[in-house]
């Protein structure tokens, strides 16, 4: 690893990686490398304390037990919280939204304290929401529709300090009927889109990277553009 390389923290892929979410770190790294910018992925697994000095972080989804192990680890080793306090970008997917909130209620009805980086709370919905999810981005700087796949039972409600990431045009998002997906608060961006999210949404990937390295030249990949057309037009 060279000193000047951008360091992307893949946080707890061993417990929070149910839906290919490790792919987000890979997309971020490759979108830098394809532009000639050195970048490395730093995997932070359960035996490791969470380092505070990485350039950006991604967290993925998990099942109940694993989600609880991850929550405990992030509270015990508050490197992520320190990184956020200096403005390092964090991408939190699915269960990670719940983990970073004030608290979440498990499917067994138990309330678990979260990390508290996001002003939101989560409780189970009557039915799981599963399927394609599309939203109109509400994050300044993003114009392309966001597309992904959602699969969660937790229903998330934002407090006043968190803003939604997108207005849902297909699927459920944070909570069925509310019409919003994800959350933004400070340097943390959260969404229920997995798939992984950044493979289908290069604009969001570059938005996160620009927070670290400044404005980036365009990087157009034909197959990514084709994939977006296919997924956004799918029935």
């Amino acid at each position, binding site marked *: 690893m060279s000193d000047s390389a951008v360091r992307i923290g893949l946080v707890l892929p061993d417990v929070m990686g149910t*839906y290919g979410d*490790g*792919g987000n770190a*890979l997309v971020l790294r490759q979108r830098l490398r394809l532009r000639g910018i050195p970048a490395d992925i730093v995997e932070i697994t359960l035996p490791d304390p969470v380092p505070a000095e990485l350039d950006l972080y991604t967290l993925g989804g998990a099942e109940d037990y694993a989600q609880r192990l991850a929550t405990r680890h992030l509270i015990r080793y508050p490197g992520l919280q320190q990184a956020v306090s200096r403005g390092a970008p964090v991408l939190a997917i699915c269960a990670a939204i719940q983990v970073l909130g004030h608290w979440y209620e498990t499917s067994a009805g138990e309330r678990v304290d979260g990390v508290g980086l996001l002003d939101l709370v989560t409780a189970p919905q009557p039915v799981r929401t599963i*399927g394609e999810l599309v939203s109109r981005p509400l994050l300044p700087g993003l114009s392309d529709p966001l597309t992904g*796949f959602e699969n969660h039972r937790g229903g998330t409600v934002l407090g006043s300090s968190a803003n939604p990431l997108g207005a849902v045009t297909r699927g459920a998002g944070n909570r069925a009927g509310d019409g919003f997906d994800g959350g933004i608060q400070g340097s943390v961006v959260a969404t229920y889109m997995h798939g992984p999210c950044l493979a289908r949404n290069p604009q969001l990937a570059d938005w996160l990277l620009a927070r670290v390295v400044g404005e980036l030249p365009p990087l157009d990949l034909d197959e990514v553009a084709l*994939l977006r057309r296919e997924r956004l037009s799918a029935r």
Partner: protein
Amino acid sequence: MIGGLVAMTLDRSLLRQLGEGRRTVLVTGTNGKSTTTRMTSAALASLGAVATNSTGANMDAGLIAALASARDAELAALEVDEMHLPHVADAVSPHVMVLLNLSRDQLDRVGEINAIERALRQGLARHPGAMVVANCDDVLMTSAAYDCPNVVWVAAGGGWANDSVSCPRSGEVIVRDRSHWYSTGTDFKRPTPQWWFDDETLYGPDGLALPMKLSLPGAVNRGNAAQAVAAAVACGVDPAAAVTAVAGVDEVAGRYRTVTVGAHTARMLLAKNPAGWQEALSMIDKHSAGVVISVNGQVPDGEDLSWLWDVRFEHFDRTPVVAAGERGTDLAVRLTYAGVDHTLVHDTVAAIESCPPGHVEVIANYTAFFQLTRALHRQGPR
């Protein structure tokens, strides 16, 4: 709804009647069901006629059809969907139950993996007299079988540990130390296996050591063979005869078969979930003229293709790779970010034909595999 309930009750009653008086082996798990069932059936055949669902139809209707078409068979080897095992066991009172492995399958359709393990555990508890042949390298299957009074533990291998970092019995961390593993939350650890294998030999109880050379490729099939032999031996088959029988299995419902497609020969591998993909990719002949990977996202495949990012594709060296299938674009993007040179040809037959002449390895998921089989059948040998 009521019609469905009546049909279901009728099915269970039929299953019970058709299963009566037979010595039955049930095989379940995420991957390897068809292969292990095929091997078990081959090994049991030395004792007498065997009823088996060789086409892979592993829910009630398929089991009923298999049993009904072999009414006089005194033995049965049946693969059963993980979710169906408890009620099928209640109906047929199996002599042996084989537990292979549990990993995430299609999460947009089926329940999450810990719920399946708990359902299996509860189902097994109702059959204390049955012999359970369980893979002790698989944490979730070990948990399902851990409380059973009659277990034969087989070290059948477990390349996919991603779904068992947390202990299914306590929620705490599972620690791995080479092949051993243990829970940090409760008294739950890898049992000592009675059967294990290496590249040449299958080892069993009482110093048993038998040379084992399979027709099917891959370490994962050696694990399947070990469990099939252990199950057959539990039914009274001579161990050496069982090994000879499983070694002769060279095709499982069209899989592993090599077919001719124009100027190419193509070996057909099926993969249905991340663990299965990793296994199939490890079987690929790196000196082949090309690799065609065909991915669909229909309901039987799972509509969520995020698992593509859980599979390592980064090891093809210079073998040309073609992304194919209805969701070939999803795969192409995955390969792009993996840094794997590839082309994108959605039609799988055309994808094979686009490779340099010679032998092509084809890996496809469920509906893509059967679409290809049908397309090749329509074309006939050319």
